[in-house]
């Protein structure tokens, strides 16, 4: 029996040893069958531009460039007093203290960085060149990346920039001044980088038109330059004129507008359509309605819907929940108009009207020699054109006393018209209000934030103090009022 036992023992030992040597070999079992190991960069570009959340079952388009300015950030439209809230007015009362930037960094910016990396890396650039020449893919991505970073820094101020998107998890916040300087450089270099190879595939913004991309980049430079009017007028002028005189041109006609073409598909429809689908959370504000009525502005019929009574009624901005009860039915107030809320309404990023107003302002400031008033009128005409209003309507409007500008009041008039023309782009309207003070918006008397004033930035994401502690603490040391919405960013003096 003993020998039998020993034999068995020996046998199991041999078997065990054999077993163990092959134990660590699992072949390709740990290769994910559900996702690609190498990306198709053109599909990332499309995703970055539209950016639908991968796990969304409702199909709400909240992640795209335009989406991030609208659905992802409804507050700026409240801060700019385009809209009022109808039932849950917390955000109108400035309860928002901080905001997450994950959609910006980890989704869109990371998309552009990935495209740039794959087109730069020696081991992958040949493979991805089939989706457009390396240079053209990089150029497009740099422009859009610069645009997104511009939005980010204008929302929060100093933010992680030079060290961001590299996988490092402790990232210093860079001064906004340095970020602006680099954004100018990036846009300049990107425009120079376009080559004669194939344009980037997946480009649903400009349909592979390099000329339009260059105009878009120049326009962004012009708008960025304007931001510096208070803090660094010299740089502002230099950068503005350089972009303005660039032979590639800028967005001066509606045909060149940077506008995301939303489609009828549920998942790719206009984000404002999603916002109002089965919900009545927002109405056009009385501030907007009253302003447009005062100017007899025909855009009112587009920006807002008539109520059952046949009038345009905005909800007073900044009411509390208990005082909103008299507006409990949609038929009592104006919702945004059908053209704004249509499933296929384009998501405007930069428009000709906006650029012509920028031109007008630059002329008024003496940076360029063009006629400021002419540019102002061109801008109004472009805005009317953008919304399909007739030239006759434009003429009547532009020549009315309340609209026609003089050299003396041109900056005020630009402020009003910019606020009107930017609608419904609340982010840009809010930022320009912070820069210029136009139009003269009053904070709600029911403000719940400590300063009781309209916010001038967003607080940093509430995860930053714990996830990026040292950098966060250093950054808030540079803020005038701490990490609050009342602190001002560098250019907002």
């Amino acid at each position: 029996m003993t020998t039998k036992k020993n034999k068995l023992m020996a046998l199991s030992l041999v078997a065990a040893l054999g077993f163990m040597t092959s134990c660590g070999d699992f072949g390709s079992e740990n290769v994910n069958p559900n996702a690609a190991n190498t990306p198709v960069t053109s599909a990332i570009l499309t995703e970055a531009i539209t950016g639908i959340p991968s796990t969304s079952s409702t199909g709400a388009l909240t992640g795209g460039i335009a989406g991030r300015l609208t659905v992802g950030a409804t507050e700026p439209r409240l801060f700019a007093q385009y809209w009022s809230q109808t039932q849950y007015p917390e955000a109108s009362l400035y309860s928002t203290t901080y905001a997450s930037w994950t959609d910006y960094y980890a989704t869109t910016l990371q998309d552009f960085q990935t495209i740039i990396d794959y087109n730069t890396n020696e081991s992958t650039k040949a493979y991805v060149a089939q989706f457009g020449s390396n240079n053209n893919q990089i150029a497009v991505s740099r422009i859009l990346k610069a645009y997104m970073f511009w939005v980010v820094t204008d929302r929060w101020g100093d933010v992680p920039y030079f060290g961001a998107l590299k996988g490092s998890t402790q990232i210093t916040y860079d001064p906004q001044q340095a970020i602006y300087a680099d954004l100018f450089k990036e846009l300049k270099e990107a425009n120079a980088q376009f080559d004669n190879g194939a344009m980037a595939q997946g480009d649903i913004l400009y349909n592979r038109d390099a000329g339009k991309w260059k105009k878009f980049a120049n326009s962004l430079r012009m708008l960025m330059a304007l931001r510096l009017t208070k803090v660094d007028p010299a740089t502002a002028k230099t950068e503005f004129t350089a972009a303005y005189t660039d032979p590639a041109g800028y967005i001066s006609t509606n045909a060149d507008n940077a506008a995301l073409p939303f489609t009828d598909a549920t998942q790719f429809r206009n984000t404002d359509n999603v916002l109002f689908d089965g919900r009545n959370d927002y109405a056009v504000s009385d501030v907007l309605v009253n302003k447009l009525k005062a100017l007899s502005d025909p855009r009112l019929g587009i920006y807002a819907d008539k109520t059952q009574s046949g009038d345009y009624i905005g909800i007073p901005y900044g009411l509390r929940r208990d005082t909103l009860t008299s507006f409990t039915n949609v038929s009592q107030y104006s919702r945004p108009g059908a053209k704004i809320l249509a499933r296929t309404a384009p998501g405007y990023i930069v428009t000709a009207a906006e650029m012509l107003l920028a031109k007008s302002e630059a002329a008024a400031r003496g940076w360029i020699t063009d006629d400021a008033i002419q540019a102002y009128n061109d801008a109004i005409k472009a805005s009317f054109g953008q919304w399909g209003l007739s030239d006759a309507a434009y003429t009547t409007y532009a020549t009315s006393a309340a609209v026609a500008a003089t050299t003396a009041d041109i900056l005020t008039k630009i402020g009003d018209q910019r606020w009107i023309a930017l609608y419904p782009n609340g982010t840009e309207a809010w930022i320009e209000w912070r820069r210029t003070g136009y139009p003269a918006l009053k904070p709600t008397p029911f403000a719940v934030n400590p300063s009781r004033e309209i916010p001038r930035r967003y607080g940093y994401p509430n995860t930053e103090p714990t996830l990026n502690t040292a950098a966060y603490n250093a950054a808030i040391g540079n803020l005038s009022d701490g990490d609050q919405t009342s602190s001002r960013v560098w250019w907002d003096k």
Partner: protein
Amino acid sequence: MYKRLLIAFLCLFGTVSITFAQNRTITGKVTAAEDGSPLPGVNIVVKGTSRGTTTSATGDYTLNVGDNTGTLTFSFIGFKTTDVQVNNRSAINVSLESDASTLQEVVVTALGIKRDAKSISFATQSVSAEQLTVTRQPDPANALAGKVAGLQVLSQSGSKLGAGAVVRIRGAASLVDKNPLYVVDGTPLSSDSGTPGSLDLNSDDIENISVLKGPNATALYGQRGDAGVIVVTTKKGLNRKGIGIDINSTTTFEKVNILPKYQNEYGGGSESTWNTYTQAPGNPQEWQALNGQRYHDYADDASWGPKFDGGDYIPWYAWYPGTPYSFKTAKYVAQPNNVRDYYGTGRSLNNSVTLRGGGQGYSIRASYTNLDQTGILPNTSLKRNYVTTSTTFDLGKHFTAGANVNFTAEKRFGNFGDDYGNYTGSGSFNQWFHRDIDMGILRELRGLRTPTGALASWNHTNPTSTTNFTSTDFNQGNYWFNPYSYSDQISYTNNRTRLFGDVNLTYKLNDHFRVQGWARRNQANTTYDNNIPTLIEQSGGQTGQKASYSTGQTQDLESNYEGLATYENRFGDFDISANVGGNIRQNTLSRIQLATSGGLFVPDLFTIANSLGAYTQTSNRFSKTVRSVYARASVGWRSLVFLEVTGRNDWSSALPVNNNSYFYPSVGGSFVFSELTRSALPFLSFGKIRGSWAQVGSDLNPYQLSLTYAVNQFKYGGTYSLITTPNLLPNANIIPSLSSAYEGGVDLRFLRDRAGLSFTYYHENKINEILNVDVTSASGYTQNVINAGRIERDGIEISLTGRPVVSRDFSWDMTLNFARNTSRIISLTPTIHSIQATSAVPFGSTDQSYSTNDAFNLAYVIHSDGTDNGGNNQWGQLRGVGIKYDNGRPVIDPATGMYQFTTNQYFGSVLPNFTGGFVNSMRYKNLTLAFSIDFQQGGKYFSLSNYWGEYSGLMAQTAATNDRGKNVRDEVADGGGVHVQGVSPTGEAVDTYVSAYDYYHQFGNNKIINNSVFDASYVKLREVSLGYNLPIKANKFVQTVNFSVVARNPWLIYLANRNIDASELSQRFGENGQQPGTRSLGFNVRLGF
């Protein structure tokens, strides 16, 4: 009962060596005196010789004896050793008396290895079938509450049919909150499905549950045992004349238990003023009857409305024709019981039949259980069928084959949503509701249609708000449906089948050496079909509910192939036992989900092709393999000293190829000192000290080592494909994590085991735990897979047992369990000092957001090493926006009386300070009374119900009487308002009154959670049963008849916050607006044939 545990257990102490003298052969069977069941593994020795054998699986034996005059000694753990004279007989059947003093001496340890309790070097605790079936809980895990020291049961509300309890052993072992591993007859039932499933066993089929608490006990289970292992042994067949039949029938009735305390002073609406209805041209003619009558705001779903005064008002339903209440006013009075009245009486029928039998060389047990429940929520039901079989066959002399098969089929019907804004009850009543709703009328008017055909709701818009009363706006529910109508209309069906079990083969060379092999399988197939009809879409103004259909199926399969060689023998004073084994585990999962989007094209056609927009789909598959070898050896000397070592090595497919192997050992010993003190300390019937040290390694989910790019199912414009960049930054250098633990303890029994004490201290370190941590998204990612620092836990467990009364007619058994644990975060990463807690990411998911560890972005469960919160590094602390304090006094804006607040404040750990239970069983003649109490002290939780219930004026405190004797809702000038005291930002004292509306809205406006964080302490009488054994003479037909009355959750003796049952929190952070718990009363009949 415990003797059945010993089935298949071999003789540790037998000295067996077969001689070849062929004199006389004796055959026979050894059975238990108590119930006649066969006893396998009984030692039989011819006294004074070395001749002996052990009984087979069916209790049979054959033994050659030297002559006809000897004496046979039958010995077996748990039974009195019995000597029998041979007296020339050739057949000797013996029936062994159980020996109470050594009962519970065998415990089931890792890999199902049954061991003498004396030799165990770590803490384990067993729960017997009797203790498990006190009230025959549908989920056996619920029945563990209070019965094991250090085991915390978070039962799920009885409204949620089929939801299993969350079990936590020894507090928290790791940064990731994991459920323990359930092992049924050796087959692991992973809780990989993420949500706590039920154990899928009828508790009547369970013989015993053994809880292995720490790494010292679970080292042989490896990585999946690091949160503890619950080893379930099912009942097996027995050998008896004929077929044994047990019939068991339980009927229980359930009612809703704890509900929040609501205010009953003010009705619905956003303001306390009345509106007066004035008939206008164009309004419906019938409304003339309401002309001049008053009504409150219907559209706002809050209860800040007018004060109840008993006068006439227009209730919500009076505007609609076609009911007895149309166009009539009602009295405006409080409805204090309206929420309680909403919930119906649940009914649960649990019927089972068990057949048990056996014969020469085989045994079989088969049982069938039917569970049929209807819930307290309208239109909810659960039907479950269990089939459990267990068979063994002797194949010749050396081989035994067996199979254990458990099959469950479940059909669950209803929407059991228990989170924010659910439409089925609590989402409204505790968060957004009108306190003046008459629930009887709401129930009566279920299905009532408005003139536009929509379902009428209590929450419609106001008649002042429109001039067009035929518009859908006025005739829909604004935010809410009538919950009865909603529940009647929707159809949510969930079908689940589960099959688990094993086939096994044992080769027994002799009494010392055997080899066993198992092929195990655990598979769960789930399908669901959820319909929301078009009428619901048409009936909701702002509910966002589209008509929809969604369906999906998940196939989850785990296979284990396991081999184990066992050698046991005695050499002189030494008992040797050794095992060598190996295991291959394969997990695969495939999941397909489809849903319509944007509504349905053809109304009420529930098929995916009918989607109005592009339908959504996901299809994923996952696979992972872990290979393991392990060994253990133990040696005992004179039943006095025992020593054990184990080792296990795993190879995981999910780890980096070059570093996918990890080894972890354990060592332990025990010293039974009572063997030496028997004469010196006669009152000490048993005494043992034990100590052990162990490690357990762990890996991660598959596919987390490299970046992959997911393709979106939707194409822009139908042509442009979309690819997303990953949010999880993988880590190719991940290394296996390791827990190290040591524990020590003492087990004492006194006065012939009338009293017992078991004490354990443990200390555990977990290092390099693999988890996905949040990182700043400025990195381009939201999470990073890391090996995270170090977490420690330590604690004590005390278990006291006593039998204060033992007599022929009356006996009383009691167990008192107590455990205290602290889990601390020592370090995370050099740069990250706090992270958001997560639940274990289920297999087949790399998406950490799978688990909800934050409440509505209000309260988070945070692990902090103490750097950012003043040194508190306790596991799992609630964090959120909190009131700012200055030297312990709240900082208040003196102008408004509003609290100043700061973000990222800590509110304490969610883990309790101590937990325990008190389990009792008394018998007087044929009557038995059993009850169990469990308790918990400390631990914080966040209540979203309270958070919104205050905001919307539902909770009692929003209409309390203040210290000036006025209602807080009265005008401050009139003596009302909430008294607020504190200091101004500049340090001056502030003492003022704030209107209740402003006071309670500031929390919602500014996300301040102070008011909604509560202490989770509770004392609960969880189970009571009173049984009666009918004193019938066992005859050929009926052998036993037992009748009992059972009550579950009859009495919540103590709750720190009586609004929520803290023993039934659905979320780690607390509750999310969950459905209320239930209490039930029922009766049970058991017949044995």
